[in-house]
């Protein structure tokens, strides 16, 4: 069966999309709508939503996301009188589609070596046919992510523009200025990592980091990690960078949206946080690498190949979940920036720092390669 999949790459990609997006990302995004409320409540000494239940099945209120989804779907879809109907309908799609597509580049496990699944894989060279645990392996790698991330801002800006509402327009404009400012920093902050790994391809980056945590990006590129994490949180438009939403004064670029259209914006935001978590995992936290786990198992304890891959997938998921939790923690701890503070942080602090990071990294890489 696996041999059949190797031959049919389209089917293989489809199965991976279902595994990754339908079975991991979407449920996790829906769950984070509940987790966010529950976690923020815990942080503020409250309990949060814990009541939604189906009969006696309560599960600490996890079913709230089901209730939310049902509510969103059955709510009246209100389209205000003077909106641009085409753009108004297009904006939610523009917001959610790019963030879902970018998951294609995320490697969530090491390559599955077809034909050696049940054996201990001592020599990776014996693999003739592989199934990569990544939907699309392309050399442009993270550039693809940057390209699509800048498309995602169109959703926000169009929503603000098409709504025929000055507050949502202000939100959309804030979003576009914020995205433009932080995308520069975001790209530059990863440059150091690109220099060290010598590649843009996420899976190659994970392989280059190896299973020793001291070689992971967070150790070799601490400044790059902090700058990228900050800039990328700004890209997700969540607190402390939630100016486009600006709940106290603007309500946000989606103020005219109702029902599931609003729900899609909401979901896109959470998917973005999960995507950010996966990128940070891939570039800085060793992706699917587990400390001490090589392709033949832990040091002297040998494991069959399939078990190794499964452990790696679990490790990747745990890292992503941890970073999602961390983002929620940041979102509910820090107060919002003022627009001028945001611009100052982006252009006058993060940008020079990321340039310094590139120069230092380049110098070190050059020195270690012996000036060649």
């Amino acid at each position, binding site marked *: 069966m696996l041999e059949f999949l190797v031959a049919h790459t389209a089917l293989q990609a489809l199965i991976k999309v279902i595994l990754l997006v339908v079975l991991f990302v979407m449920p996790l995004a829906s769950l984070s709508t509940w987790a966010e409320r529950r976690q923020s409540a815990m942080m503020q000494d409250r309990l949060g939503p814990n009541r939604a239940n189906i009969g006696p099945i309560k599960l600490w209120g996890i079913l709230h996301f089901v209730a939310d989804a049902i509510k969103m779907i059955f709510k009246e879809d209100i389209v205000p009188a003077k909106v641009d109907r085409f753009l108004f309908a297009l904006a939610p799609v523009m917001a959610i589609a790019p963030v879902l597509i970018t998951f294609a580049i995320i490697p969530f496990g090491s390559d599955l070596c077809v034909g050696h699944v049940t054996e201990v894989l001592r020599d990776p060279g014996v693999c003739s046919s592989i199934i990569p645990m990544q939907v699309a392996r392309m050399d442009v790698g993270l550039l693809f992510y940057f390209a699509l991330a800048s498309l995602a801002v169109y959703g926000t800006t169009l929503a603000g523009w098409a709504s025929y509402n000055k507050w949502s327009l202000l939100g959309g404009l804030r979003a576009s200025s914020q995205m433009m400012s932080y995308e520069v920093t975001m790209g530059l902050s990863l440059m150091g990592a690109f220099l060290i790994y010598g590649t843009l391809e996420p899976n190659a980056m994970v392989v280059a980091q190896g299973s020793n945590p001291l070689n992971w990006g967070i150790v070799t590129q601490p400044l790059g990690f902090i700058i990228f994490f900050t800039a990328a949180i700004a890209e997700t438009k969540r607190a402390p960078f939630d100016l486009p939403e600006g709940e106290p004064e603007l309500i946000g670029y989606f103020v005219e949206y109702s029902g599931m259209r609003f729900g899609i914006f909401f979901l896109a935001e959470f998917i973005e946080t999960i995507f950010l978590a996966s990128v940070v995992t891939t570039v800085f936290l060793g992706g699917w690498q587990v400390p001490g786990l090589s392709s033949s198992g832990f040091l002297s304890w040998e494991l069959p190949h399939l078990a190794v891959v499964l452990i790696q997938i679990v490790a990747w998921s745990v890292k992503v979940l941890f970073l999602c939790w961390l983002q929620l923690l*940041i979102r509910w701890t820090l107060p919002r920036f003022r627009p001028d503070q945001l611009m100052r942080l982006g252009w006058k602090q993060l940008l020079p720092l990321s340039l310094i990071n590139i120069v230092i990294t380049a110098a070190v890489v050059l020195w270690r390669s012996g000036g060649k």
Partner: protein
Amino acid sequence: MASHTKHEHHPAGMAGPAATGPRKGKVGIRVVGRPDSLEQRLYLPEVVKGLGLTAKHFFANLFGRKYTVTVEYPEEKLKYPERHRGLHRLMHREDGQVRCVACMLCPTVCPAHCITIVAEETGNQNEKRPKIFEIDELRCVVCGLCVEACPCDAIRMDTGVHAPAVDFRGDSILGKIDLLKRGTQSKAVQGGIGPDWRTRQPTVKQYDPPK
């Protein structure tokens, strides 16, 4: 940044009213300076500190609800103070009749105009009684003035019951029968104690204006 440091040390008198007032404990004014130290101006160490604090609360509340103050209402209830104002009730006489004499004091004093009384004859020369006694609990502002105004201990708000949620606004208008259901016999003496004012002679001298 030096110009900001002077704000850090206010004379003690500034915090005086709050600090020396009747309250005890940590209520007062704490003057916080501008972020001057390098650590504060770098922002990141302070962010990490803040994250540490919220994470501490998160985990303490996750495993054991250490700081959680939430009362899970229907299962868990706080004891209300004795004079808590709940849903209204009408009290009974010894014979189970309504104590209300339709004196109209409560609809008069009601700031929300939520009480409607239509009086009727009882056959007793001295008293009326309400034919209709309605309270619109949606209009009621729960001020308790009706209870204060009532001379007969007929209306009370000591049920401790919250106004129930209703599907239709009309359902929240409580009539005499609804109000009497929650009522019990009042121990107050109807008409008050002491001689009847109709037969009582004035015991104090009438005001005699100087000529």
